């Protein structure tokens, strides 16, 4: 993919990110932060790719460590966010 395409995708993603959260009420600041946090756990995909490409034990060890950390980030993040939000659930109307 050429640099121009990547730059365009980057710029547009910045706008989407800005717009999508710009009106959030302060009640949701914490769950939103936590949910966004979980989303960047998708680096797990990158960790799996580099583990696949690893050729030395050092590379493999580091990428497995990355997988462990990324999984914690991703799965833990979504679970904890869900727990936070679950509490709001029963009570609305």
């Amino acid at each position: 993919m050429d640099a121009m395409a990547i730059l365009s995708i980057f710029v547009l993603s910045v706008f989407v990110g800005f717009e999508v959260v710009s009106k959030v009420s302060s009640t949701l600041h914490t769950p939103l932060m936590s949910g966004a946090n979980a989303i960047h756990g998708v680096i797990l995909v990158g960790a799996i790719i580099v583990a696949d490409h690893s050729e030395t034990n050092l590379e493999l060890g580091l990428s497995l460590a990355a997988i462990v950390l990324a999984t914690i980030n991703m799965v833990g993040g979504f679970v904890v966010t869900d727990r936070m939000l679950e509490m709001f659930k029963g009570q609305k109307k």
Partner: protein
Amino acid sequence: MSRTLYDLIGLAAGIAFILALKGLSHPKTARKGNLIGAFGAGLATVVVFFYASPSVSGKAESSLPLNNLGWILGAIAVGLIIGVPAARRVQMTQMPQLVALFNGVGGGAAALVAIVEYLNLGLEATTAQVVFTVFTVIVGCVSFSGSIITFMKLQELMTTRPVIFPAGRFVIAATLLSVIGVGGWVVSALGTTPLLILAALSLLFGVLFVLPVGGADVPIVISLLNAFTGLTVAASGYVLDSVLLIIAGTLVGASGTILTRLMADAMGRSLFGTLFGAFTAKQQDSSGVADDRPVRSGSPDDVAILLNYARRVVIVPGFGLAVAQAQHTVRELADLMISKGIDVAYGIHPVAGRMPGHMNVLLAEANVPYDQLVEMDEVNPTFGQTDVAIVIGANDVVNPAAKTTPGCPIYGMPILEVSNAANIIFLKRSMRPGFAGIENELLYDPKTMLLFGDAKSSLTKVVSALKAL
């Protein structure tokens, strides 16, 4: 699986993340939003096992099933075994530090991925790839070590006060300069050793960067580090040629930045001041020299009597309520008052507690009905008709200095105007000021009554006194 299909599924996961953030921004759809995000992440993870992604370096052959498949699945299992129970079991009051920790490990993972890819690329890396790798390593490591420090602060494994050491700002500046210098060295000279030195220096910088931040500014820093981690993921996406990582990382980076600003605004802090506290902070004396003026302190019975004859009571919870974990007790008190026909509402300041929205989460956990939680803008006009405002472990969020004293740290922050209520009760342990370290005139107000002690035990006493009436 063909490249096209793989890419399309990646784009679908990116769309899921957009929808997730969109959903998370509205109370009604927040939970669904989170689930959509989890679905997208799961989809992206599963799909990667069905596509032999060509190595960027072209050296390692990839074929299906993936190389090291057993190891990979094992590592994921380890991550699950650590992450899920931690997320399940954590108490809601400790949730901020868990989020910090999760963010930190994400940053660490991004840095590791960048390092491995760098090792793998070796001398074939293009300059752009090396620049992005350096960026990811620096920011990922800062995010990792910075988050660990915020975790320790929030978990009170270390002091929550700003840690300022002599000549600290020079040490920090020097570290930052060497990080940049070594980064440049990596770009120009390549090589594993410089990269590891860079990682070590970045870790150090992360520690130094967060140490001078005060406990209550920590959520802002977490949010910022979160945005940083997002950007590292985007940079990894560039190196690994993955549109999904670019989109996901940029989304988090952008929304995290906005969120950081919203948080800082809501608590009347300057983002700049918080961040560059490291460079400007002075050893500050906020031991809170108690004033000599008289205050009116009362007993739990006095408080119970006041409440018993009130028609409308507004409860103002704050940081101290979270510290004392008194959310269940406060709910008990409210239920008791309601059963006596008293009109009860909670006045929620956006930045009461340790994180924005923290009070809502805590009170929701104690099953406080949602409709009793009233946001600042709505509750403020009603204080005129309120007989008793009972301020539990809050201080700054009701401090009139925010309106009257230009130049004080919270000047300009909107407050809960409890001074319009007929009576004010403060539950706190001492005359010490709140987070901002400034005197609260309201404590000396003739219509204020102070009930000293830990919020939870004070509330328990008030509840029994009120029951006895």
